[in-house]
């Protein structure tokens, strides 16, 4: 029998500590939608998505009602469009982004991911066409998200792709200048991208995935923060133990919701992503957890160690709670979506360089970072290259979602609203990386890749 204390603990987590399921993401394979005629292909894509996901939002709301746990987002990820569109006789892939947008609107999801390409070792014709279409596709749609994998531990870093992405990000920002470069908030550049990530903007349905699958992303920085604050005077071993126990409970909710959604929709359950995903809500902040451990401000010396402890304890607790763990599974440190991170930047405690160091010990990377509008494509490419190097050498996922905010300079703000939040514009290094980035070719895979 459950005790009243246990029941009240669950209720407190939801009502006071912002425990929620961040997303139920339905992965849909579009591999059977290829066609030489772009209009036929568009119809096939639309019909497949609207067919499989027609009950997704309603089912999510049903689960929310039954269990009393908020499910903030219902989303869809699809097979990378570069692969599906490759055999199509069109050079303009923007039309496929429009199809995805229309399908997403029809079924009522707020984001659809998969306008993506995997180019870590080189480009196919379809990859190049997709990359070319990204700025216009993201500027012209509201819900479509794009991701490009430019590096893996096995392949090394495709520096041609890295340089191209720098230019694409600049172009996407320019096309959405009136909205502070919003298109860039829907574009992620990855190294070692996972194929089953439920979180946007980087979600796509990997080529090793089944026909259709349900993946779940939990949230809960607020719950962990409160637990950490209560464990004020304990040593690190006990602190890690507290976080583990909390992460276990949070993840159990993801497991429950994932299983329920999978059963109701008749779709296999893929994974629970253990990431701690902050929101702009007060208290729902990863920075606040780190500060709760005893740092005056997130970003000061000790922050990387604190984050490493947090990330590891969350994984250990979460791994016990779920039968299938996957996706990104680590603490997120997006600046614009975390009130504590924003404050740390405003007060000069947190710099771009410290954030880069923090990405060595957590997922995912430099996420939702606004930089001055006059930052060059070459500098952005070099920032991407640095992150990719961290991922490739450490055999982990890293990513860059950066917004060169048009017309803005250090100290200004970009405002996206909603879950994307607001971000202070951060300074970049003023020295050029241009000659380095322009060398071209591929940085070879590191020795760590030779594991066979």
């Amino acid at each position, binding site marked *: 029998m459950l005790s*009243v204390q246990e*029941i009240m603990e669950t*209720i407190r987590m939801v009502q006071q500590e912002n425990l929620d399921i961040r997303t139920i993401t339905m992965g849909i394979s579009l591999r059977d939608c290829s066609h030489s005629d772009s209009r036929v292909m568009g119809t096939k894509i639309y019909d497949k998505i609207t067919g499989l996901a027609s009950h997704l939002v309603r089912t999510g709301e049903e689960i929310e009602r039954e269990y*009393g746990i908020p499910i903030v987002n219902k989303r869809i990820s699809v097979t990378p469009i570069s692969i599906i569109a490759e055999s199509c006789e069109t050079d303009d892939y923007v039309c496929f982004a429009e199809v995805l947008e229309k399908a997403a609107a029809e079924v009522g999801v707020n984001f659809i991911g998969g306008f993506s390409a995997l180019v870590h070792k080189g480009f196919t014709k379809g990859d190049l066409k997709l990359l070319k279409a990204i700025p216009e596709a993201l500027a012209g749609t509201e819900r479509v998200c794009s991701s490009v994998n430019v590096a893996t531990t096995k392949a090394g870093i495709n520096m041609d792709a890295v340089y191209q992405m720098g230019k694409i990000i600049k172009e996407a920002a320019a096309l959405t200048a009136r909205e502070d470069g919003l298109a860039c908030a829907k574009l992620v550049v990855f190294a070692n991208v996972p194929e089953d990530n439920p979180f946007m903007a980087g979600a796509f349905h990997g080529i090793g995935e089944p026909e259709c699958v349900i993946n779940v992303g939990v949230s809960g920085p607020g719950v962990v923060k409160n637990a950490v604050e209560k464990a004020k005077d304990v040593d690190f071993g006990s602190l890690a133990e507290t976080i583990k126990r909390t992460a276990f*409970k949070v993840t159990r*909710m993801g497991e429950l919701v994932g*299983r*329920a959604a999978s059963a109701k929709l008749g779709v296999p359950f893929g994974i629970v992503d253990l990431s701690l995903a902050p929101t702009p809500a007060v208290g729902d902040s990863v920075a606040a957890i780190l500060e709760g451990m005893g740092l005056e401000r997130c970003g000061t010396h000790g922050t990387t160690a604190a984050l490493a402890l947090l990330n590891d304890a969350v994984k250990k607790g979460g791994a016990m709670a779920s039968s299938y763990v996957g996706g990104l599974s680590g603490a997120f440190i997006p600046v614009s979506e975390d009130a504590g991170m924003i404050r740390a930047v405003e007060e000069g405690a947190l710099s771009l360089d410290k954030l880069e160091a923090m990405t060595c010990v957590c997922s995912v990377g430099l996420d939702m970072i606004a930089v001055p509008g006059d930052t060059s494509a070459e500098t952005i490419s070099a920032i991407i290259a640095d992150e990719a190097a961290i991922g490739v050498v450490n055999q982990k996922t890293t990513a860059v979602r950066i917004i060169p905010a048009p017309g803005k300079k250090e100290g200004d703000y970009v405002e996206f609203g909603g879950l994307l939040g607001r971000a202070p514009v951060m300074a970049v290094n003023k020295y050029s990386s241009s000659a380095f980035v322009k060398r071209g070719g591929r940085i070879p895979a590191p020795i760590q890749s030779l594991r066979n």
Partner: protein
Amino acid sequence: MSEHILSKNDEPGNKVIITVLGQDKVGIIAGVSTILADNNVNILDISQTILQDIFTMVMVCDIRNCRVDLGTLKEKLEVKGREIGLQIQVQHEDVFKFMHRI
């Protein structure tokens, strides 16, 4: 481990947990249980306590023969809650079992 979620027919279980939070006053149990009786919901267990100065009542109920669906029952209780100035929540038992038991 909850047998409901793992069951082959994937039917949700029949037990829900109703929690009532707020200031203690006359008629709370009467108000809530009238709605439950009207809808043919069987009360299996009730406990009440004061947690951090808040009156807390927890009811375990069987909704197998409930005349309305869970959403409607929830709505009715929430309306009642607003009427008497208390917060009333209805949640499926699995939430709690899943979080606190392996």
